[in-house]
């Protein structure tokens, strides 16, 4: 192979560490976000497909691996086509049927119940499809060194798993959650490709349960305490006889309600981060690509800071700053993700699959797009 000598990219050998770098800047993202915001307002949000695309191009482009930038090749037009498809083929017929049935039959007619059930089931099963298909679209529009990523597999199969696990999670009061996360992630990662090479995801869920148990008991314990004390307070409210006592008890209850739900929110948020940090680390550990093993140095503190910062950004910008939260996520992963092992990048051949022609209509409708 004469060409082999012309390669400037050394093979990554054992012991070497491969890092992602992210050099996106707030100062460069800001003009993008400002113009996008203006255009979204002017177009009653219809511009969102193009504004999302522009932000993605910037975020992908700001990420490099071994000195070569990722590229995002999707277009706003493709997202818009996805939206039109879902709007006309799925939502408009459902909405029309729904409207006609609601209007034509009296509210207490049994067909109303059948309709609600049918609509609910359709939407429920479409959420999993939306998540899976959106990921397929994004991967197929992601390129590194001219080679596309991809995702194979059936979105309906994913959706079936998704629904089954959600139901199981509810039935078991949350205890299936770590298994669900592992299985769903496994379904995605094992179907993920870069060029002609497949990712592998494998591992036991056992190690996640220690963290999960701590968080579960923390959350449930607090919830119970909150409920019981509130009940106690409200009985004081019922016992109160004169107006002054009632006002006093009412004020105490309101204060307790506000403070209590705030504390509950903060504690459950923290508990979630404690679990999530372990989960992210575990996911990375279970992932392999060729002879590369991954490691994600996700700390609890780092994750809490990411979450709190992003919530504040969204609150302060009334939701328009969502691109900044995405950049922070990118940075979080790029700063903390490492790959060790060997890989012969030169030998990776372009994927034969071009990916879907349009995408994310469902993800847009259900608002499940991660980026």
């Amino acid at each position: 192979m004469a060409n082999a000598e012309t390669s400037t990219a050394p093979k990554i050998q054992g012991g070497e560490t491969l890092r992602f770098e992210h050099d996106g800047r707030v100062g460069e993202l800001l003009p993008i976000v400002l113009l996008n915001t203006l255009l979204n307002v002017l177009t009653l949000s219809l511009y969102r497909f193009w504004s999302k695309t522009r932000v993605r191009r910037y975020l992908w482009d700001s990420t490099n691996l071994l000195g070569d930038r990722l590229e995002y090749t999707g277009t706003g037009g493709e997202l818009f086509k996805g939206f039109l498809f879902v709007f006309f083929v799925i939502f408009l017929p459902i909405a029309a049927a729904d409207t006609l049935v609601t209007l034509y039959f009296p509210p207490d007619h049994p067909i109303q119940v059948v309709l609600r059930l049918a609509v609910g089931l359709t939407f429920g099963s479409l959420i999993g499809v939306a998540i899976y298909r959106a990921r397929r679209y994004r991967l197929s529009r992601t390129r590194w060194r001219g080679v596309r990523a991809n995702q194979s597999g059936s979105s309906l199969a994913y959706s079936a798993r998704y629904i089954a696990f959600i139901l199981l999670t509810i039935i078991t009061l949350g205890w299936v959650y770590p298994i669900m996360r592992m299985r769903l992630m496994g379904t995605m990662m094992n179907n993920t490709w870069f060029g002609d090479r497949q990712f592998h995801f494998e591992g036991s869920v056992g190690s996640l349960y220690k963290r999960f148990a701590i968080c579960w008991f923390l959350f449930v314990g607090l919830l119970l305490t909150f409920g019981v004390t509130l009940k106690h307070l409200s009985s004081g409210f019922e016992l109160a006889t004169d107006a002054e006592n009632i006002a006093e008890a009412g004020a105490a209850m309101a204060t307790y309600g506000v403070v209590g739900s705030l504390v509950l929110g903060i504690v459950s948020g923290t508990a979630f981060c404690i679990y999530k940090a372990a989960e992210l680390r575990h996911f990375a550990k279970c992932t392999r690509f060729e002879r590369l093993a991954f490691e994600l140095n996700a700390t609890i503190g780092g994750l809490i800071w990411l979450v709190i910062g992003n919530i504040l950004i969204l609150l302060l910008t009334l939701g328009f700053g969502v691109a900044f939260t995405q950049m922070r996520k990118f940075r979080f992963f790029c700063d903390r993700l490492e790959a060790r092992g060997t890989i012969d990048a030169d030998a990776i051949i372009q994927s034969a699959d071009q990916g879907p022609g349009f995408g994310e209509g469902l993800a847009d409708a259900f608002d499940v797009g991660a980026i």
Partner: protein
Amino acid sequence: MLLTSVPSEPMANGAYFDGKSAKKHAVHVSLVGMELTIQAERGERLATWPLADVCAVYEDKHKSSMRLRVASASDTALIIEDHSLVSRIEPDLLRASRKRSDDSFIWLHAFGVICATAIVAAIFYFTFPLLTRPIADLVPVEWEKKIGVTVVESIPGANRFCNSESGKESLAKLTRSLSRVMDLPYPVSVNVARMELKNAFAAPGGFIVIGQKLIAEMESPDEFAGVLAHEMAHIAERHPISRLIHIFGISILFELMVGGDAAVVEALLEGTSLLLFLSHSRDDEREADKIARESLIKAGYSTRGLTSFFVRMQSAYGGDKKDALGPMSSWLSTHPSFAERIASSRNQNDDGGKPALSDAEWFELKTICDNNLTTRRR
């Protein structure tokens, strides 16, 4: 002179991705005529790109390196870090080189989406009134009546009907003669009620309620006949149920169209849908005024009452103050301005026409709430 006629070809080193594998080729790039020639270090030619098909993006802030793409092979890319070559080729590229943050932004797209939004909004605006009536015709009367009852019950005092016998007779007489000349989908049920609002309304299912406080303002039976004819015209056109369908339809459509990213955009859309609804509501009122006038004439009544009542309501409700807000106030209102309604009713003032009720009948109607016998319906 001879020397410069054989210029050396501008050359640069770069990296090339051929789109077939993830291999990074170290290459020499040279400009030959209007084409970039990409050669491997050993000399074999990997690709030839006509400059007119090439576009470029600066890889970094300092514009020291540049990524070139060619239209004909979308997976390939060429990265060069040589300023002299860059400045030579830049003027001849497909389009001006851009910063990374500008990549993919096209003003034409933005402009196109703005125009498309305006067109979609216009389509909504014009087709909604056309669509709501046929859908309204699908609704069974029985069910429409059920909704009507709920509507009446939800308005404070609207179900505290007044029922002095003689007053009810006057009311029934007027209703009958107007019903004969109107094209009603089902019979109306008209009542005067001790409603808190000084107003009158028509609810789905043919329920018309006229507030006691409104009657107190009226100076002649013609004015009452005008208001009644207006409310009955709403029923004749099935406006109340059409409006419900309108609200329902718009909320569903907007729900489907809007992405959930920004709270402000959602608020904006709610505002837009309200403006749309109000505008159509004003169209309904104009139509009802027109039908009311026609029906009054057909029934042989004077239409003067309609005009004189609007005039009085205008002065009572500080029409001047409202006008001071300018056109905004008429946009934000469910009804057209009194000034407009007076003008259009004056245009076709007829003059003939008998009084709608005799003085005695009118007295009974005005005092319909005077006995204490009010009933709550159902």
